[in-house]
């Protein structure tokens, strides 16, 4: 997960200013977001936890404070699920697990599950993604797609004229069902008969399982805690900057790097909240001292600054107002850097 340019900025600042508080801060900011998994009993929370762990996220134990919540449910949202989502205090992603069993008609289970997720998302307002945790585990855990299982899949493929699973031992058959299930077996056999090797199979499972979309969504939703972290981290620095040796800290805080990092984090928050379309705010990390290339559009930065100032003055949440102000500051800095400032 990318924690934005500020971590690098802070690290550089810590080195330059020789300020122990800054290095602590940069360490805090580098710490990845903690994901808390909760949800309906029996829906596969443990499997989802395992998937996210193997994808490199930090997953907290149940009941431990987290930055982003993942709510696991299956089939459809019950009244309890809706209540839990409505009461969630963390930015949350709802995950429809067991999506590989959502129905074998029409476009297949994942498409059915995705359509259901869209429906549920429009009624709850919580980003909802389908996931086949079983397949995601199979994709990431080399212990699942071991030679034994691959061999069994090969065997199934070879009997394609009249697939006779009875030729497999009972243990293998049980393993196939338990670790791949129907959808996984069907896709795996098809892939193996096309000559896929274990790596290709893992890639296929990863793509089928929908885990990438879930992780992308967690990352998107994580913009808010990241921004909060950044703001919280910078707040004590302001106090230091008025101290005896505060001039350097103040200079650092007012520097382009910090302002632009805040702008990027704030833009992420507004994008994640759906306030602005993705890509509205172009990445603006400009190496210090370098004049950016002329984009051809004169004063786009100024225009963006004006429009976000207007936005921040409008009827928006306090958080979004703060984000708007950060974006305005960043855009104005970019505008000045582009040497268009009179």
């Amino acid at each position, binding site marked *: 997960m990318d924690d934005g340019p500020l971590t690098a900025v802070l690290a550089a600042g810590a080195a330059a200013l020789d300020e122990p508080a800054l290095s602590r801060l940069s360490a805090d900011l580098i710490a990845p977001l903690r994901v808390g998994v909760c949800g309906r009993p*029996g829906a596969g929370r443990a499997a989802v936890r395992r998937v996210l762990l193997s994808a490199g996220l930090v997953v907290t134990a149940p009941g431990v404070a987290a930055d982003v919540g993942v709510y696991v449910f299956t089939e459809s949202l019950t009244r*309890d699920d809706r209540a839990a989502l409505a009461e969630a205090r963390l930015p949350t992603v709802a995950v429809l697990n067991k999506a590989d069993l959502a129905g074998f008609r029409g476009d297949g289970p994942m498409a059915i599950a995705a359509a259901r997720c869209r429906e549920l998302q429009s009624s709850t307002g919580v980003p909802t993604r389908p996931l086949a945790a079983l397949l995601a585990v199979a994709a990431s855990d080399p212990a699942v797609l071991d030679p034994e299982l691959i061999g069994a899949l090969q065997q199934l493929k070879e009997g394609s004229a009249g697939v006779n699973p009875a030729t497999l031992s009972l243990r293998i058959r049980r393993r196939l069902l338990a670790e791949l299930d129907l959808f996984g077996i069907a896709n795996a056999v098809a892939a193996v008969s096309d000559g896929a090797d274990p790596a290709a199979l893992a890639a296929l499972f990863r793509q089928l399982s929908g885990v990438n979309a879930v992780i992308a969504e967690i990352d998107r939703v994580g913009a808010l805690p990241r921004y909060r972290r950044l703001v919280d981290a910078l707040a004590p620095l302001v106090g230091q900057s008025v101290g005896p040796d505060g001039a350097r800290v103040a200079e650092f805080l007012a520097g382009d790097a910090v302002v632009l990092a805040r702008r990027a984090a704030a833009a992420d928050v507004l994008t994640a909240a759906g306030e602005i379309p993705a890509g509205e705010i172009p990445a603006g990390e400009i190496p210090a001292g370098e004049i950016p290339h002329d984009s051809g559009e004169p004063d786009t930065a100024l225009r963006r600054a004006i429009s976000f100032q207007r936005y921040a003055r409008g009827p928006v949440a306090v958080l979004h107002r703060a984000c708007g102000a950060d974006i305005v500051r960043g855009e104005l800095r970019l505008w000045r850097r582009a040497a268009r400032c009179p």
Partner: protein
Amino acid sequence: MSERPTILVTGPALAGVTAVAHALQVRLGPGYRVVEYLGPGERSAIVVFVSSAAAPMADADAALLDDAAADTDAVVGAVSKIDVHRTWPQVLEANRNRYPHLAWVGVAADPQIGAVRLDRLAGAVLATLALCGRERSRGGEPAPRSRAARTLLLRSQIQQARVHLAGQARSLSVSLRGELRHEAAGVPRGGVDAFCSRAHRRSTQVAAEFDATLSTALPRLVGLPAGPFSASAPPCPALESYLPRFDRPRSDDRLAVLLSVGFGLGVTFTVGRSLAYLVPAWWPAVVAGCIAAGTGLIVWVVRTRSLLAERAALDRWSAELAAGLRAALDDQLVIQLLAAETALAARSGIGPSRDRT
């Protein structure tokens, strides 16, 4: 009970309720009635609670089951979609641990893989029904309970009829009002009496129409042969007593005449003086002509104003007439419903006099 037993199939959304209900109806045949919703006052002989094998029952599902099973002990739990959810035995076990007194079976009513698996559910339903039937015959049908159920049924039927028919009365009177107001806006001079009598005729017609609806729909709604129960009803007040009379507007006639005369005289003088100035040689003819024209104008304005006043009064009267008609229809409805209720209560032996014994 000679009626075929009603089997209520219920459960959370997407659990497969519709598929199970359909398959069960097909399997059990026309001797049983399988429904997903109970009508007002209806009771089911047995409840089949469908829960998906995707996960064990959630608390909200349990609340749903408690609601469905509130007035019956005959409940069969069905774990659906066992064709795709391989772990259904564990789910079934979890559900059984939660509700140990229910019979829990797995079903695949609309399978995507393999054959329909419904035999055990059908067996469990029939066994539970037989068990309930035995218990009932052993203990005798508990009379107060069935009486209470019948009262409930009767009451809800009457209420339904009330809502339905009151809506009809409202729409009839509203449409009459619209019709009359539309006509009143175009009443010609001297057509007031004709309009009034036509309006009265239409009201009588509408009342008769509603009466006909009552005497056919009401017995059908409460399940009685048409007609006879209304004999005991007290007579309804005559329709005429509800309808207001039309009074011609008088008060502003004099004022209208005064204003019209002023207007006519003003026009006469203005036009006369202008013409006399333009063609001084013709002044006697101009004076005569202007007096004639002014008099004509006065008469026309007076008549037009009185016609407009009459139309406005007719418009108001139409609304009053419709309101009167509405009151008449409502009274008629209440009286008829009361009579129907009395007749029904007497027929099913749940009248207040029986209750007191």
